Every structure is written in structure tokens, then in C-alpha cells.
């Protein structure tokens, strides 16, 4: 059993239900995730895709859908040729009430040795989670330029 590569945690002043909707509804994700839609019927085993401004950036399969506690999907980057050759990785969102807050833990794991995805992921998730927190707490997401990711094909 290899250990996860990334474990990100943020505490958000919201309810697990609202946070769940923010993670699974495109109406919300487009506001804090660089205009990215999350496309799936959310049945376990169904396909999943991230679509940014009409371009599919990542694809996968729904592994767990247990609202409002646990969401997971496989994650395979579709834009960069080098990343396309790598095996799919796995993303798990874990939501736990913590007093008036919700603790959101994001685990991204199962990267290939020397994965080219590691760098983009480690820049992307902290920005996305910061923006998500701002959106839920203040109503306004952060305007982070997607070019900060340094991902081929994303400007």
C-alpha cells in the first residue's frame, strides 16, 4: 500500500450540504474553478469529466458518491500528451462537520513514479480550495489566473 502523495485540508464556514453542492454542481464549480464544469450523472462507475471553457481537461470514473460525506473519482489529465500517457490517479474528498465549520480533506493519490502531473496538481488544488472557501464564505471566488498552473494548453 503506497502512501498518498497529497493531503490538503481546509476549514470552511458552511454546511456539509452546501459544500457538497459546490463540489458536484457545475453552476458552482464554474464560479471558483476557472469556469470549469463537472460533468457526470454521479452514479458509481459512471464517467466523469472536467470541462474548462468547452475543452475537456480531465476525465475519470466515479468511485464513491456518498452525500454529503465522501466523493471520489479517478482522474486522468486529457490535455498534455505526456500526462495522457500516465495511468489515472485518484481524488477523494472527505467532508466532516467541525463545530460551525466543515473540514474538507482532499487526498490525491496513486501517481506514477516521476509523474508530470504532480507539479500541476500541487499548484492547482491549493488555488481551487482557497477560491472555493472564499466563494462559500463571502460569495465571491478569488480571481486566480489559470496560467499560474503552468499546464500546457491552459492560459
Amino acid at each position, binding site marked *: 500500500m503506497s*502512501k498518498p502523495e497529497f493531503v490538503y485540508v481546509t476549514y470552511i464556514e458552511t454546511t456539509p450540504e452546501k459544500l457538497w453542492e459546490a463540489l458536484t454542481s457545475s453552476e458552482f464549480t464554474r464560479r471558483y474553478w476557472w469556469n470549469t464544469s463537472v460533468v457526470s450523472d454521479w452514479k458509481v462507475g459512471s464517467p466523469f469529466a472536467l470541462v474548462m471553457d468547452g475543452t475537456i481537461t480531465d476525465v475519470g470514473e466515479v468511485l464513491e458518491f456518498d452525500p454529503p460525506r465522501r466523493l471520489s473519482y479517478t482522474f486522468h489529465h486529457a490535455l498534455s500528451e505526456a500526462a495522457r500517457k500516465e495511468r489515472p490517479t485518484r481524488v477523494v474528498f472527505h467532508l466532516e462537520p467541525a463545530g460551525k465549520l466543515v473540514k474538507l*480533506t482532499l487526498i490525491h493519490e496513486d501517481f506514477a513514479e516521476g509523474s508530470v502531473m504532480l507539479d500541476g496538481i500541487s499548484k492547482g488544488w491549493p488555488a481551487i480550495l*482557497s477560491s472555493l*472557501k472564499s466563494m462559500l464564505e463571502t460569495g465571491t471566488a478569488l480571481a*486566480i489566473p489559470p496560467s499560474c498552473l503552468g499546464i500546457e494548453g491552459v492560459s
Partner: protein
Amino acid sequence: MDEVFKALADPSRRSLLDRLHASNGQTLGELCDGLAMTRQAVTKHLGILEAANLVSTIRHGREKLHYLNPVPIHRIGERWIKKFERGKLTALSELKRQLEKRDE
């Protein structure tokens, strides 16, 4: 945000974050290895870093693994650095890095 600045104000805690940046997901034992600090001191520092949410932990089998959690640092960057010009700062950091490399 106060907790983050307080946690970052200590050089031992910054060095623990540097060690996690170099190799993410370490046990307490691995983090103590080669450090001049006692295990108790490392435990205390990790507790402060975890309370500030700069370190996240998960159970992995029998082990407790520590991860660098950059989300609060990212938020500080967004709050303070975006007020300046990010492009120029990147250029200046790069210039500093290049000049210092030449001295090595």
C-alpha cells in the same frame, strides 16, 4: 490567519515544513531523523503547525503521516501578494536566484 503567522515565526517549525516540502507524508520518526530536536519538541511543533492547518495528517495503516498543507499559505499570498504585481515579483525572485547561483 494569526495562528499561521505565529506558527511560521519559529525557525524550527519552518525547517519542519521544509522537510515536508522535500518529502511529503512522513511519520514522526522520519521527521525526527537527523534533527537536533528531541522527539517531544518535534511533537509540540507539529501540534502547533497542525493547529494552524499548515500540516495535515492522515492515518495510513498503523502509521500517522504528516503532509505539508499549503492552502493557508496560498490564502496569505492571495491576500497580500495580489495587491502587488505578481509578474514583477516573479521576475525579481528569478533575478535574485540567478545572481545568487552565480556566487556559488
